[in-house]
């Protein structure tokens, strides 16, 4: 035990000493107009514009068009042959909440009770995480971070990825209540923690408990409306906007049965539902489309859930959702691997999406699901000047090379810990 504790504190020391703050300095507020010229502009909402210019003024997109005139003292950047995209949005991950997964002291994702609707991820977001710049370097400007947990996990926050602290980083502090939906499957595997009968019982018990939380929250809302409550219950208080349908519920559910349960549940409580995970969402795509329930599909590289499912079912799922008319975003639940979501969008094109649909899945659709599409998620006049430039096709390994990024017109440092180490050790070899 003594050994263990000293080891842990050693780890803590290392962590705080080594990785507490990254060296990248957040961009300064935009001082002068910036004109990007002659690029291929992937607007995400208005199609692809060839040889077009984009003007950013005071952190907003001021103009998009061919042969724009540069305002006085504007910085003009020639992007001939290059591609402009909206700053990419990664929904649903732990960026800034975990630094090193195996080191407990660097993990701020998980509270102990089943009922944490009042916890907010954003206030633990470490804007100085070494991981964040590595994700920016691949084109991501925004991330929706959420707390993990066993049932009512808490509230997610939409962050922009270039900031001095979480306060600066916060775009929207309370985006959604996240629920880890009770398991619906029963597996008879020796590796399963319980016998199938016991698992079925446990699943039912968890559903009953979840229902009870909503009954209690609703009772609280009713009592409070009549001014009959006995003081503030922090948990149920946080659920008031959810019960009013003002704040969406992001239900983490992969199994078709969970999704169906969640849809019925949302109808009963008149919740604004979003499905997160959605490995089986292709099985219920028509129902999701009819009920206008969006999906954040987080397994773009997933293995099939079942042996007899097609090898490429996860790759194809975005196209199947698209075909059924489901609104969806692409993501990957994690932190360091968030940078691969950009290639996952390419993979979805390989399996049936158009490039524009794939782009929407990591920009405008994500913005809509996060309720911020009036400000971000596409290149349109009046929207935030959050723009990313790649030498070639950003989704393909053969074209991907992020050259510039601005968030709200602020130039983002695209360096990161990975690149710094590369630079350092290249000196060892005399480069």
């Amino acid at each position: 035990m003594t050994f263990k504790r000293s080891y842990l504190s050693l780890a803590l020391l290392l962590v705080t000493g080594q990785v507490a703050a990254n060296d990248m300095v957040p961009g300064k507020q935009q001082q002068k107009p910036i004109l990007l010229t002659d690029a291929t502009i992937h607007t995400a909402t208005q199609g692809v514009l060839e040889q077009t210019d984009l003007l950013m003024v005071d952190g907003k997109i001021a103009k998009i068009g061919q042969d724009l005139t540069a305002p006085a003292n504007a910085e003009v950047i020639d992007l001939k042959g290059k591609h402009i995209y909206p700053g990419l949005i990664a929904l649903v991950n732990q960026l800034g909440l975990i630094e090193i997964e195996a080191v407990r002291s660097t993990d701020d994702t998980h509270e102990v009770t089943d009922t944490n609707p009042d916890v907010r991820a954003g206030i633990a977001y470490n804007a100085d995480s070494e991981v964040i710049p590595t994700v920016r370097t691949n084109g991501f400007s925004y991330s929706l971070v959420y707390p993990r947990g066993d049932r009512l996990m808490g509230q997610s926050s939409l962050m922009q990825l270039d900031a001095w602290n979480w306060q600066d980083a916060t775009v929207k502090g309370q985006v959604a209540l996240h629920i880890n939906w009770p398991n619906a499957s029963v597996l008879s595997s020796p590796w399963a923690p319980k016998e199938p009968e016991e698992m079925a019982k446990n699943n039912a018990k968890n559903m009953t408990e979840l229902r009870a939380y909503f009954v209690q929250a609703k009772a609280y809302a009713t009592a409070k409306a009549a001014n009959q409550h006995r003081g503030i219950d922090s948990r149920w208080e946080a659920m008031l906007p959810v019960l009013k349908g003002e704040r969406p519920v992001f239900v983490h559910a992969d199994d078709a049965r969970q999704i169906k349960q969640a849809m019925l549940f949302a109808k009963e409580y008149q919740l604004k539902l979003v499905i997160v995970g959605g490995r089986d969402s292709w099985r219920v795509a028509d129902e999701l489309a009819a009920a206008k329930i969006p999906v954040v599909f987080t397994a773009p590289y997933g293995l099939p859930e079942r042996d007899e499912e097609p090898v490429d079912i996860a790759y194809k799922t975005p196209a199947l959702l698209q075909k059924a008319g489901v609104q969806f975003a692409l993501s990957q639940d994690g932190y360091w691997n968030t940078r691969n979501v950009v290639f996952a969008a390419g993979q979805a094109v390989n399996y049936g999406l158009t490039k524009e649909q794939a782009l929407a899945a990591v920009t405008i659709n994500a913005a809509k699901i996060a309720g911020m599409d009036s400000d971000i998620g596409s290149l349109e006049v009046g929207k935030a000047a959050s723009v990313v430039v790649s030498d070639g096709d950003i989704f393909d390994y053969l074209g991907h090379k992020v050259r510039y990024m601005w968030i709200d017109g602020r130039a983002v440092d695209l360096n990161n810990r990975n690149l710094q180490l590369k630079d350092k050790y290249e000196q060892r070899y005399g480069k």
Partner: protein
Amino acid sequence: MKLFPLSLLNAAILCAGAPALADQTSPIHGIRDKTPQLVAFTGATVHTEPGKTLQNATVLISNGKITAVGTGLAVPNGYRTIDSKGHHIYAGFIDLYSNYGVDAPKEGGSNSYRDEPVYQNERQGGNASNAAIHAEQQWVNTFKPDEEAAKNLTTQGFTVVQSARMDGIFRGQAVVASLGNGLPGELILKADASHFMSFEKGSSVQSYPSSLMGSIALVRQTLADANWYKSAYGKTDWRFFGQAIEFNAALAALGKLNDTGLVFEVDSERSLLRADSLIKEFNLAKASYVASGFEYARVAEVKNTGRPLIVPVAYPKAPAVAKMDDQLDVSLADLRHWDRAPSNLAALTKAGVPVALTTYKLEKTEQFWPNVRLAVKYGLSESAALAALTTTPAEMLGMPGQLGRIANGYQADIVIANGDLFKDGEIVATWTRGQEHAFKPINDPDFTGEYALDLAGEKLQLQISKADGALEAKLVAGDKNVKVDSFNIDKQQLQFSAALNEVSKTKGVAQFSGVLSGQQLFGDVRMPNGQQLKITASRKAMPAAADEKKDVTPKLVSKLTFPNLPFGYEIPVQQKNVHIKNATVWTSDKAGKLENTDVIVADGEFKEIGKDLSTPSGYEVIDATGMHLTAGLIDEHSHIAIEMGVNEGSDAVTSEVNIGDVISPDDINIYRGLAGGTTTSQLLHGSANPIGGQAQIIQLRWGVSPEGLKFKNAPKSIKFALGENVKQSNWGEAFTSRYPQSRVGVETVIRDAFQAAKEYKASWEAYDDLSSSEQKRVAPPRVDYRLQTLVEILDKKRFIHTHSYVASEILMLIHLADEMGFKVTTFTHILEGYKVADEMKAHGASASTFADWWAYKMEVQDAIPTNACIMASRGLVVSVNSDDAGLQRLLNQEAAKSVAYCGMSEEDALKMVTLNPAIQLKIDDKVGSVVEGKQADFVLWSGHPLSVYSKSVQTWIEGIPYYDAKRDLVAQQQIGVERQQLIQKVLGATDEEKAGSGGGYKKPDPLWQCETDGDVFKNRLNLQHQH
């Protein structure tokens, strides 16, 4: 001794020949039992042996033996005669796999993975060093008859069992005993029968073995130890040991294994093949296997073992498909097995595999006969079934002249049934060595038929018929009828009650009591009003029932594919000669990338590569215009296709375990890898210990046997590991006692192991130098597979792939390797390789890395996605690997990341998943590039192989198209159709068919990761998704 009870019920067990204390040495107390033991069965249908039947025959038994069998035999004077007309007589059945009369093991210790590990076995007497070895146990020593358990078996016709405790890997020596009553010594037929074995460690709480490969290694080492012990024990020249040879009763017992034989229980046909190759390594001739029920899936290979099988007849419970939503949890593989399980015996016997039946695994022993009959309906011939119960097990016991036949001189073990047992006969009595166990009266009157009753002028008909083995009766008047209540028959007496309302003017319940005498029924009826009537009726045979249940021959609905999984092949794919036209060919060789190029593949090799080649006659042509062709992708680091544990994570050094012993061709991830263009994978042991297990290079040949999966003539390799995993940093509180717990100890453990290997080698060299007469005098060194593997490394016959992350440990191992005289072939993971690239290069090592993984634990904090580029630029041979069942489908994209992150040339990037891993695995003379003369392993891509917008269209290994995207689509359709048909079969099955009888399904392995630690035998898994 307890006296045998005489039950008054009709299922009484009568023990005509059970005298108290009848052995030769017990003093007699009281009066001697001198009941004569002369019995004649007459008029029976006698099945003297499989395929031979005598009608209307007589069997004589005398003093526990059969003395005569034949038709027209006169019964000698003095015999008790049992009229057996209408009955069938069989030889008593033999169950070769039983724990009858043997105490159950004590409960094992805690099953929690989080508990303190146990590294040592408590030594007592001459027990073995591992707690799963009980070979010194001779179960004859504690054998005690068990009345209840015996009855369970004799009611099914069994008379003899081979029995031992079913616990552990070496389970001890069985005893063959009669199921009769008496003193243990009287009942024992063979004291030194087979040793029972398995791969399951049972009640042992010792950590080792914690994986199937660990079990296999333990069996191998123990059998070798037994051979060594035979030659070493008692020798006085113990120069190689420095002390006298230990007394070891377990090893002494196993020294006689070749004479006693062994019975090995397995849980799948794959493990059957594994056990057999292991047993053959030691030339053990007398072996049989307890079948798993899955043998139908690889019946040819099972047949090739040449071993007899002991086959349970337990079938699985039907998968839960009643609720549509639940079907999401039901796999096609399970549906198929439920469909096919009852046909396993037919498949085995038709293939010519000798089989014996056992009641083992049945939830209830009385399910035995219904299940045998089901097997008969599914194609098992009656004579094969009878052989499996009698002659075959008798031969397997080495007692073919005593047991298994109704013949003169054979033991009087006899089964009497009131009909053909394989159709609907019921066993009425079983005799063990002349001792009678009667369950049903023989030759009781047959009540079935019609009786015309006259109830005070009202005509009613009593109909008695047989349904589901029991009699039932109804009263009929015209088209109305009523079933009678409290229907009871005892010998000749019949009683029942009947509510008359439906069939009579009289209301109320009438009661009947009568006796059948010959064909006449005499009795009394008490009418509802108390009036007593005398009744006489003649028995008339019933007209054949129109609604008799039709005996439908069951039909197999499922496909049997190779492997027997979704996407398996009904007929294994064959090698083809093809002409691929007009592709962009990435050679991964000097020739570079060739546009508009043809490739001719013949006899599994690249025959010709060039432009506008002409098609040799008979060759298939593939127009690859617009497509790209690359060599098949190679994964240096994979954990797919491994069964029951990727880590033998118990000891710090486990070089004796071998992934090659536990590869499984039945992993869907083989197919998934193929679909992503991967053709070759090195299956590595996990990273739980500094010196891990031996690796196995495989080719992803979907549908072959376990042996067929192995890369032919591939060099041997082994996994080492350094850093957090081996020092158990993230294993939890309980794991802080194993050496090493820090990087400083990792070095000393490895050094000491190699020092031991050197000394081991020296011992053997010294021994080999002795003259043959000296060799006879001296206790020879012991074969130690753990050290022998390390000697192979020192002798450059086995190559190290070491899990490693940080610069310090990389340098440590390089220094240690130089000091001890070995080489590290490949540093795998090697996320800080960029920091010490020149040192690795100087050592002669290569590097295999993740494309972009980092941040998941402390030691990967300095990982960078430009690692591959920097290492390559310093002249290292670099590959990227998957270490993941998902990523192995995307190796081309993993390689492409170096193009994206650091501008590696496209051809060099592709080499990181083709030629470079081939070099690292030392198979680059055969695969890894598209060069004339090399094995035709290739992938046809829809476009540029490094683009995110390309996918594999076809994947070939040695000229065999193992994956074809078009065929995959067809298979997807077929899976849906077959699934629906199987679900229909389940839904239409009877409750009995759905309930099953104790058979199980295959246990799917989880997705193994480097760090999946735990104990597969205790389900103590710690599934961590780290690497």
